[in-house]
């Protein structure tokens, strides 16, 4: 089951990022994962948070560009070559990875990886067949809720 991700447009200017993190903190939003893609002019901040809709509403109300979409989340066992194996599975199925980022599992047993692909269902099914465990939003939040 795919995980909800929040993407936020951040202009490359002083205080651009902190304005967003401050706003989220002020609304009690807890972040589980983040990554930033940046260019000369702007960045896209990608977040997995405990309350996506609330975060989106808070950002939108402040005139910040936000998009919610779903990414595939899997657990990667903590041993060499496992991420490569996961990516090979997708490659073999002809599934193109737009981007990915890793974060720590709440249970501490391995790493979680969020993967952005065109077709989430196809990617999940390929990874599951190869023995990877897909994670849910509950896994991401862990026992904190």
């Amino acid at each position, binding site marked *: 089951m795919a995980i909800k991700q929040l993407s936020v*447009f951040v202009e490359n200017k002083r205080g651009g990022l902190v304005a967003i993190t401050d706003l989220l903190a002020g609304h009690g939003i807890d972040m589980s994962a983040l990554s930033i893609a940046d260019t000369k002019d702007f960045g*896209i901040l990608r977040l997995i948070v405990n309350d996506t809709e609330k975060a989106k509403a808070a950002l939108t109300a402040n005139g910040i560009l936000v998009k919610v979409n779903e990414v595939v989340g899997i657990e990667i066992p903590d041993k060499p070559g496992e991420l490569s194996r996961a990516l090979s599975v997708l490659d073999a199925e002809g599934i193109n990875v*737009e981007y990915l980022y890793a974060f720590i599992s709440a249970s501490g047993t391995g790493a979680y990886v969020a993967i952005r692909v065109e077709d989430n269902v196809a990617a999940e099914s390929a990874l599951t067949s190869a023995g990877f465990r897909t994670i849910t939003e509950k896994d991401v939040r862990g026992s904190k809720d």
Partner: protein
Amino acid sequence: MEQRYFNKEIETMPRDELTALQSEKLKKQVRHVYDSVPYYRALMDEKGVTPGDINGIDDLYKLPFISKSDLRETYPYGMLAVPLSDCVRIQSTSGTTGKRVIAYYTQHDIDIWEECCARAIVAAGGTKDDVVQVCYGYGLFTGGPGINGGSHKVGSLTLPMSSGNTDRQIQFMMDLKATILCCTPSYAAYIGESLKEKGYSPDDNSLKAGIFGAEPWTEEMRRDIEKSLGIKAYDIYGLTETSGPGVAFECSEQKGMHINEDHFLAEIIDPDTGEVLPDGEKGELVFTSLDKEAFPLLRYRTRDICVLDRTPCSCGRTHVRMAKPMGRSDDMLIIRGVNVFPSQIETVLINEGYAPNYRIEVDRVNNSDTLDVYVELSPDQFTDTVGAITAMEKKLSAAITGILGIHPAVHLVAPKSIERSEGKAKRVVDKRKLHD
């Protein structure tokens, strides 16, 4: 649709009668200027032309041109053609392109000006039953006072809002059921955006028409404003030097603005040679006032680039139409030797699905001009991948290159990050230091 006119006799006067009227008025106007303004008399003497040489509008070409620099040179009283004690008002330019120009008005001049504005309001469907919301600036700027006076002459209920305080504009618009909105097109677009943000649909307001001018705008921006406010948008043209708004105005045909030719005689000239160009050719617009008392102008070069159209208009008005100016030649940028009007870039933006909120920056790096265009992204255009956004930037850049022939760097920026204007929009920043 039944056509309504504020002054039917004049507005639909047969061409030959109109020409005769103009010739009579021109002779008197030239005599008045020659007798009353020493600066002008010197210019005419220098050119070897006397009032006796002007027997009608066909002799107009004999007169010397004047330009903004003449008005600046004679500041503050040098162009005054009546005793100061006969004047009842001044208005002034913003002075953004140099020293201010002050225009003087007798009561007769104010009456002419306000009638021109009244014609524009009636052409936009205005009647005594309308509620006209004027959010042009009041004060020295001619926009507010001119339309205000025109609205009084029509007998409409006039809301003298002046510019700014958008929340209050919207409150009055809704509570008093304004039917005609008058402001700059960029402010109209901003009001439309603000209404949407407050959750209003275009059907929620009582507006039926808007009269927008005082800055260049495009056909595409007109359609945008018409959609966002649920109105028909009419263009109006004028400049402080000739009186203010109302020199020309659009009728329901929206095919150019009828010049109030009983008061202002228009010519199109080659801006480089001063030669009068035939109708239909693009050039600089030149105005001669025909019956002004305090601040008459003969062959005043507006620096606006446009085209005149004398073909009959189906609205019944016989007065010549001027196309929407491409921009004042002051607004024209020369980038890498290419003439660029901001309105050309605006047209591309709207055609490519962007809102007309943009900033153009021109700079010179290593002796080469650079053009940067900043455009706001809208929420539905934003995606989570960098590739998609840079692809949008490239596509927009290619579209602008296709029109201008020069390649801009396009930067998509956050919504509302470009400063909004409540008066004339400042969209161009020229950082080149070419003179110092």
